[in-house]
């Protein structure tokens, strides 16, 4: 039902009368300009000459009205929305920092995205629908690509920062966008955004409500990056201080109130949000509940409205039982969703995984069929990009389990039956670490590889292993991937990528990563990305195991809820569109 509202909303958006007239007017102006011969040269290569997703963007929403009025009017899908109530989220992992430019753990993203806005927003679910469209649905009221290197954003005029010191409700302007983009592409090695924003050459703010971004090279993923969860727009008053980790002041739907470590984060409705009438919840409480049993009990007791996840921690049969126990729920199932890929992750600079043959022994040795069976109904092979996305490889592209070949590879690398390979996987208790590792340990046994599990504290794991530490052999966990291959692969596998935690180096992969970055034609880019993925699968800095699929239940009183809490990074921003009916009494 919620899905219906969603699509109706977008279909109406495209035919809105105001947009149509404005678009027509813009077109007419352009025609007249062309007729008068006022414009010439390469700047005239407008977005319409591009093909693929960008062209679709330009065709649907780029010539948006220059005013913010259209966005301020209530969306028809939200006509029945009711205001009130406290929305409770049980978050498994506590945020590490509220500065999304530096932290991208699920908890950190979830919390910060309630408070901050972005320039653009992804309009389509890249798993369910194969197109990828970035719309001017947040702080940009419209955008256009002037040429291969230049983008112009017009900004909403009624956005204000939250009325909290030190920003004190000042008006949001182009200068804030310029500041934030410059921050994201800064030189701080801690920045997770650095690689993705590095192609940006300069950011200009010709007037308070216009931002012009020029890239150094054609950058196909630019809109995806501008609409990405971590590309939050921050105020300099806060972002320049160390407070930014524990505090958030944004332009977004909810105002950050407090953060009690290990307990909860509290948010209040932003009464001055630039979309009038929104959001609908009066308060949002994000409780830190690492224990699955407690999260389950809270859902059963009606304290939370969403629950679910991926096997084997949550076998699908238990979700069916929950449906019987709590009848008034909607269910959203996803195959190959982007958060549920499990992987073995190697440190390619240290023995034994600096030897490609040892990594490949895992690739050929792992028993994928068994894993798929254990994970149950929605499971399938996992790849560098989710198989269900437009960029994904096909099942047939992956090598099948071949224990004999794996053994031969190990033997060639010097690990024989007399001197078998013994490795240590350093894991966290979160991110499905224990589940994936215990299964991996068993499926590698027939190959003669002993995998010892070393479970360390969550934060230590993030900083020492996942964040590019050198003192680990391998790790294994459930990871999520991203909508755009540049975002999903460049930072992780380019020699200079800022999240290259496997320390992987390949001139061939570097070349392909650069090539796809500059390719605007979607079909051509798909080909490059495919070659790149085949190379990565074979080189095996990671061995992608199985994508488990996700299944989520939401209470029917929660309206307009349409995506996995974790299954789709974009969904964090959708809480402003959700409401309760009836409003739970708390």
């Amino acid at each position, binding site marked *: 039902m919620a899905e219906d509202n969603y699509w109706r909303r977008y279909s109406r958006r495209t035919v809105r009368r105001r947009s149509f007239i404005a678009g027509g007017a813009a077109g007419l102006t352009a025609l007249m300009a062309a007729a008068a011969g006022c414009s010439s040269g390469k700047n005239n290569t407008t977005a319409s000459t591009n093909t693929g997703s960008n062209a679709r963007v330009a065709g649907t929403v780029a010539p948006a009205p220059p005013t913010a009025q259209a966005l301020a009017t209530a969306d028809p899908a939200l006509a029945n929305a009711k205001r009130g109530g406290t929305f409770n989220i049980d978050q498994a992992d506590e945020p590490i920092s509220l500065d999304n430019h530096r932290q991208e753990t699920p908890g950190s993203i979830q919390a910060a995205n309630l408070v901050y806005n972005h320039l653009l927003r992804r309009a389509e679910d890249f798993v369910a629908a194969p197109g990828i469209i970035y719309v001017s649905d947040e702080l940009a009221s419209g955008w256009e690509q002037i040429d291969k290197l230049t983008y112009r954003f017009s900004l909403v005029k009624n956005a204000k920062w939250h009325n909290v010191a030190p920003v004190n409700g000042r008006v949001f302007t182009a200068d804030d966008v310029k500041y934030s983009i410059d921050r994201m592409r800064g030189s701080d090695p801690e920045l997770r955004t650095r690689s993705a924003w590095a192609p940006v050459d300069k950011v200009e703010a010709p007037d308070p409500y216009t931002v012009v971004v020029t890239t150094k090279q054609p950058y196909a993923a630019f809109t995806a990056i501008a609409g990405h969860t971590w590309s939050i727009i921050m105020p300099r008053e806060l972002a320049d201080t160390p407070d930014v980790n524990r505090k958030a002041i944004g332009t977004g739907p909810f105002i950050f109130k407090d953060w009690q470590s290990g307990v909860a984060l509290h948010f209040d409705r932003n009464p001055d949000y630039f979309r009038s009438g929104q959001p609908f919840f009066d308060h949002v409480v994000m409780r830190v509940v690492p224990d699955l049993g407690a999260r389950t009990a809270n859902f059963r007791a009606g304290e939370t409205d969403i629950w679910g996840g991926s096997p084997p921690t949550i*076998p699908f049969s238990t979700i069916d*039982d929950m449906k019987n126990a709590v009848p008034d729920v909607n269910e959203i199932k996803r195959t190959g969703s982007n958060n549920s890929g499990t992987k073995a992750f190697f440190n390619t600079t240290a023995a034994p995984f600096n030897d490609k043959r040892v990594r490949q022994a895992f690739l050929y040795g792992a028993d994928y069929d068994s894993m798929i069976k254990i994970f149950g109904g929605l499971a399938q092979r996992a790849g560098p990009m989710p198989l269900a996305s437009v960029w994904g490889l096909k099942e047939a592209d992956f090598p099948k389990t071949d224990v004999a070949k794996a053994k031969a590879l190990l033997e060639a690398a010097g690990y024989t039956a007399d001197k078998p390979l013994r490795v240590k996987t350093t894991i966290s208790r979160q991110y499905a670490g224990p589940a994936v590792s215990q299964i991996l340990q068993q499926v590698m046994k027939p190959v003669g590889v002993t995998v010892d599990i070393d479970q360390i504290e969550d934060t230590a794991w993030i900083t020492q292993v996942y964040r590019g530490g050198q003192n680990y052999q391998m790790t294994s966990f459930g990871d999520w991937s991203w909508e755009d291959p540049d975002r999903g692969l460049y930072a992780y596998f380019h020699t200079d990528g800022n999240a290259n935690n496997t320390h992987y180096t390949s001139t061939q992969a570097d070349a392909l990563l650069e090539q796809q970055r500059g390719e605007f034609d979607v079909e051509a880019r798909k080909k490059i990305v495919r070659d790149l993925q085949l190379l990565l699968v074979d080189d095996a800095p990671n061995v992608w195991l199985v994508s488990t699929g996700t299944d989520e239940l939401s209470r029917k009183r929660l309206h307009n809820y349409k995506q996995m809490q974790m299954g789709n990074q974009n969904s964090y921003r959708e809480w402003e569109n959700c409401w309760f009916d009836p409003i739970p009494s708390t």
Partner: protein
Amino acid sequence: MAAIDSIARDDRALFERTTTAYGVAAWPLSVLRFCRRKPLGAFGGAITLALIVMAAIHPWIATYDPNAINPNEVLHGLSGQHYFGTDNYGRDVYSRVVYGAWASLEVSIVSVAIGTAIGTAIGVLSGYFGGAVDMVLQRFVDATLAFPGLILAIALVGLVGPSVKNVSIAIGLVTFPSLSRIVRGPVLSIKAQPYIEAARSTGANSLRIMLRHVLPNIVAIVIVVSTARFGAAILVESSLSFLGLGPPPPTATWGSMLSGDAIYIMQTAWWLAFFPGAAITLVVLGFNLFGDALRDVMDPRLRGRS
């Protein structure tokens, strides 16, 4: 934690009653007599014995590899193949419970050994030398006692990382202080005995006196207190495992079998939590009953009653 506190209380009561009971004469009682006098204690002893036997022969009575996953039998109920059903990875719960007995016993033996060794050593030194040594050691014990046991164990394991070794050490370190108190009392009175003076007059040094004359006289007390400790150690180990601080996966321990997955799947698969839970309850009950009975028969004032 409550278990530790109550054990500590029991220890104190025991200390009061046994200060005069060193050198217990009626040891050993015949097993038969023990069973007749203390049927509950005998029941506890039987459970304890069963646990030890199970742990000793666990590789032979387990029907499957406890860590082997089986994709075709995920979350199967009780059957002839899987007496206690299978878990969400298709592992045999019966085999895991059996292996868990070994893990629990391993941790409890090591931790009780550590706790007893340190506790006895501190107690004897402190009681024997008295004065400044007593003052320093007992204030250290006071400081350690001021921490709630489980919290201290969590902190220790959190600091050094979870493993069988570290968990055992942590539990041992949590349990030694109260034992040292219990030991110190009898040592004080033994020190005043004429045979100690006689030993000293023959030229025996302090170490020899402590080892040859003091220690044998407090062994009975130490044995009784340690037996009761096993139950508490198993409980703390289970609590740590439940909190994810026990021996790391895939080690089958009762506490870890109870944690996370099992608790919330209970509706679907009750056997996941039931069997390890029942095992913990039974074994802790067994150790406590046995320990209590042992204390009673070794206390001359209680002997012959009940």
